[in-house]
């Protein structure tokens, strides 16, 4: 059964395993994979994990939705808040959050504003981002784009919408970024983490069906590949069963 896991299902499982019982977190804008990860963590090992910080607590969606900002995706939820309370959550911070962008760079910085040109004379203008604060106030965040190519993984982003580790520990300290920042980068091909000393991104494991060389070829900067890069631990039968039967009942992660 595990061999049949889709790349998005593999992403969900990697993220879910890193979320702990009792934590508070939210999914961010591109919510399909993060919401599935949170739901899987709650089913498998973290029944007291609270979803909150985005104007609602503990939604109970009937199926997976691409955006949580849809009354139907909330299904029923335990409480609804507004942007006034979002202001408070933004300052207090969460335990975890998820981000992805148009470009991601070697230090985990994320760009959602423009590619090429300048902010006010862009070659390509992106959407921007609604709430930035969680990168700064939350304990950690995950970067989880559903595409991994040399076009969206670049050495240096054209605009830092969401800072990751900036240009390393010194820059992070100077800017006043005191939290962990991005912990893992999880894509349909692989898992990356950050070197403890330099905070540069490096390849941690490759998903079944990928080789380190292939992942490197689809990345616009050097992933510092070691000789012994392991395969990402595939979903267990139990994880996959719970994911398909209780969370992703419409098969959105396999589409």
């Amino acid at each position, binding site marked *: 059964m595990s061999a049949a896991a889709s790349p998005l299902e593999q992403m969900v499982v990697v993220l879910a395993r890193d979320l702990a019982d009792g934590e508070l977190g939210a999914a961010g804008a591109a919510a399909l994979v993060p919401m599935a990860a949170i739901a899987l963590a709650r089913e498998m090992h973290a029944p007291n994990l609270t979803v909150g910080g985005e104007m609602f607590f503990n939604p109970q969606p009937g199926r997976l939705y691409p955006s949580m900002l849809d*009354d139907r995706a909330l299904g029923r939820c335990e409480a609804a808040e507004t942007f006034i309370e979002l202001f408070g959550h*933004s300052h207090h911070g969460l335990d975890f959050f998820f981000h992805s962008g148009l470009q991601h760079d070697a230090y985990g910085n994320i760009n959602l504003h423009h590619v090429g040109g300048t902010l006010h004379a862009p*070659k390509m*203008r992106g959407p921007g981002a609604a709430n930035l604060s969680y*990168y700064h106030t939350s304990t950690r965040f995950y970067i989880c784009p559903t595409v991994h190519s040399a076009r969206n993984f670049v050495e240096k982003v054209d605009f830092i919408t969401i*800072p990751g580790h900036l240009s390393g520990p010194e820059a992070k300290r100077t800017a006043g970024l005191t939290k962990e920042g991005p912990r893992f980068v999880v894509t349909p091909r692989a898992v990356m983490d950050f070197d403890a000393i330099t905070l540069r991104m490096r390849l941690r494991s490759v998903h079944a069906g990928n080789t380190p060389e292939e992942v490197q070829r689809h990345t616009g900067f050097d992933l510092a590949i070691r000789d012994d890069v392991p395969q990402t631990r595939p979903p267990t039968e139990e994880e996959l069963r719970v994911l398909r039967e209780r969370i992703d009942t419409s098969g959105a992660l396999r589409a």
Partner: protein
Amino acid sequence: MDGQRILTRDSKVMGMEDAALLARDALRDRPELCLGGLFKQGRPVALVRALLAAGADGLHLYSSPGAGYDIDLMIAAGAVEQVFIPGVTLENRLCPNFRSAVEAGRVTAHALDALTVVGGLMASAHGVPFQPIDALRGSDVLKHNPLLREIGCPFTGRRIHAVGPIRPRVTFLHAQEADRWGNLRHLSTMVYADQLMARASDMVIASVDRIVPDEVVLDDPSRVTVPAHYVDAMVEVPYGAHPTASFPNYAMDEEHIEAYADLGDAARAGDRAGLEAYIARHVTEPKSQDDYIVAIGGARYLARLEAEAQDR
């Protein structure tokens, strides 16, 4: 002469055309327009179309921190000069006219974040000169955000940010229902930043899907989301949020928005005919909401969106 005149309370109910002219004239003093709802939900789109039909230009747009279709439509109609909204997207795809106009330099899109917008509205609503913000570091948005200043915290001396009041000249809101005095009831799960905007703005004009008897409000006052005190005018417009959602009444019309975005992409590629025809058909030609409903496919089409709203 004919006996004592009996004073009665003024209803806030107004016709759509009068509401649009009221907004248009106010925005000529100061072009700051703010829209309620969020992305594809609870957006006052009928009011937006009426304003475009009445003629508006040079607008500075504000919103809750995320917006899409209506902002893009106003840009397509040539009514916008500056955008002060952190996230502008159709969520599943980019906003075509927003992109084109910003890339061509016709519209200035400022780099902002949610806290700047919410904090600015809070300062205005609360009547204080600024709102402190202490949750942003290291982002290029800070270098370009025109509404933020760095200040020293008066207690610790630490460097933090402050945003001054954002005071829209006009705010448009959409709620599911209200009484004739303008007490709004959002029946949707999310109320977005609508309550804050109502308190932060010079003038508030609301659309509602239906007006309910006074008793509905009086029997459940804690259900009122925006008291009439903050509302200047109100228009009853069935499906007034279409093509965005007005939960629990009707869902967003994804098909309509997709078709619109395809026309926007064609315009980006140089063929504006489809987009111009869309604007004529939906914005300038309909004389009433009834005409608009016919233009989008009529009652049977809308019944599908009502059914989708119940599918949880």
